[in-house]
Every structure is written in C-alpha cells, then in structure tokens.
C-alpha cells in the first residue's frame, strides 16, 4: 500500500517538475512548481514519517516563496507572448549535459554500499515530531539558529535597498518616462 503510494507520488512529482520547465507561460510554471512542492510535502508526511517538515514545507515554500514568485510574475506582466525562446540547439545540448549528470549520479549510486545506512534496529520512537525536532534544534544547533536570524536581517535590508528606487531617479522623475520625452523632442524639432 505505502509502496504503491510512493511510486504514485514519485511519478506525479516528476511529471509536475517536467511541466515546470516546459510550460510556455511563466504563471503556469509557478503553479506547476506549487504542485511539485505539494508532491514533495506528501512524500514527507505520508511516506517518510516527517510530518512537521512536510507542513513547514507547505507553509514556507508553497505558501510564502511561491506567492512571492507569483507576485513578481504578475507585477512584471510576463506572459507566453513575450517569453524569450532559446534555439533548439541549446535545448538539446542542455538536455544531453543534464542527462550525462543523471547517468553519473545513477552509476555512482549503483556502486555505493548503502546497506550501512539502513539501520532500522534502533528505537522506534518517531523522530519527525515537533518535540524531538525542537529539542535538537534548541540544544545542538542553537548557534546556527542564531546565525540564521542574522542572515534574515541581512536579506531583509538587502531586499529593501535593492527594491528601492534611487533618490536621484525619484527627483528627476521615473526612468520609463524619459523615452517619451526624447521622442517628443524629436517630434518637435522638425516642426
């Protein structure tokens, strides 16, 4: 039962992931990526017995990050018509290069001795619960946790500074208006 569920989820996840990179419309890409993340979260929750990571994955990735992507796609007004196209040569070359990477990974996994990883003799207490994860996070990994907060502060300041318009640009007027004024002056000079 769980085995067939795993293969079904794997198939669905790979299908949606392929749709992400083949969809013409960027908004469709974003929505397919949300579905891919739901597939991965279902893997966490139902197969791998890690419900907290799965729920956090849904909240952070499908909830926050993908909404940010969707917002930017809609703000920039991207659609299938203005989607830049790459030549078929690039597509074939990229697919061949990535296929070789997959070949190397699969070959090396086949060589590896994975039996030592699989020690299910240990205690059967669930490790994916909030209690266990919180205990580990706030004892063994307290320093990386604090460093992550500094990282977020830096990222927030960086995003605000990058997203802000320049002060000089604001005082002169917004940049997109300049071509219109130049075209106006070009129209007026012949007169």
């Amino acid at each position, binding site marked *: 039962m769980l085995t067939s569920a795993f293969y079904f989820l794997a198939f669905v*996840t*790979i299908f949606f992931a392929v749709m992400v*990179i083949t969809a013409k419309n*960027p908004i469709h890409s974003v929505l397919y990526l949300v579905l891919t993340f739901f597939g991965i979260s279902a893997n966490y929750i139902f197969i791998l017995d890690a419900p907290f990571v799965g729920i956090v994955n849904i909240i952070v990735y499908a909830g926050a990050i993908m909404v*940010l992507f969707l917002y930017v796609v809609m703000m920039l007004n991207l659609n299938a018509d203005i989607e830049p196209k790459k030549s078929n040569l690039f597509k074939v070359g*990229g697919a061949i290069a990535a296929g070789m*990477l997959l070949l190397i990974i699969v070959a090396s996994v086949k060589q590896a001795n994975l039996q030592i990883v699989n020690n299910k003799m*240990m205690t059967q207490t669930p490790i994916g619960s909030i209690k266990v994860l919180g205990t*580990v996070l706030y004892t063994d990994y307290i320093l990386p946790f604090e460093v992550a907060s500094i990282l977020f502060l830096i990222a927030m300041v960086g995003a605000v500074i990058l997203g802000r318009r320049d002060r000089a640009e604001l005082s002169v007027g917004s940049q997109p208006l300049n071509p219109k004024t130049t075209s106006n002056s070009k129209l007026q000079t012949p007169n």
Partner: protein
Amino acid sequence: MSQIFQTVPLNHFIYLCSILFVIGVIGVLTRRNAIIIFMSVELMLNSVNLLLVTFSAYRHDPSGQIFVFFVMAVAAAEVAVGLAIITMIYRNIHSVDINELSRMKD
C-alpha cells in the same frame, strides 16, 4: 509507518531525488527567463531537501531534518534578494531575458 523502510529501497528515493535535481539542471540550462531559472534552482534545493529527510528517516537521526530547516531559511533569504535583483533589472532594461544582460558589458 516505519514498515516503509523494508518495502521501498533507499535506492529508489535517491533516484527520485536525482531525477528532480536533473530536471532543475535542465531548466537552468535551457530556459532564458530569469524567473524560471530561479524556480529551477528552487526545485534543485527541494530535491536535496527530500534526500536529507530520506537519509534522516533511514538513519533514524533527526539532524537531517534540522538541516532541512536551515536550507529553507537560506532559500527564503535567497529568494527575497534574488527577486529584488530581478525586479531592479526589469526596471532598467525592461526584460527578464538573461541574454539581454550580456549587453551590460558595453
């Protein structure tokens, strides 16, 4: 819940994660829209997350899931800064085509 370890071999999880990662690589190599390239990078990060949780479950060690939280934190920070950069580029050259960026040399 833990019978899954007897039924699904670890190899198949590794193959699933490898395929997802390679799909992300193909997306980075073949698309020209900067936002879709970013989304492919997110896909690669998620495949690595799935691999970390898989090894955590098979090893019965919660440290792997803690690592996933840190990967998510770094990814969130990266997306915030990256999308700000893309928005700024769009404001300057009115395109998200990465080939347009090579003209910034001139």
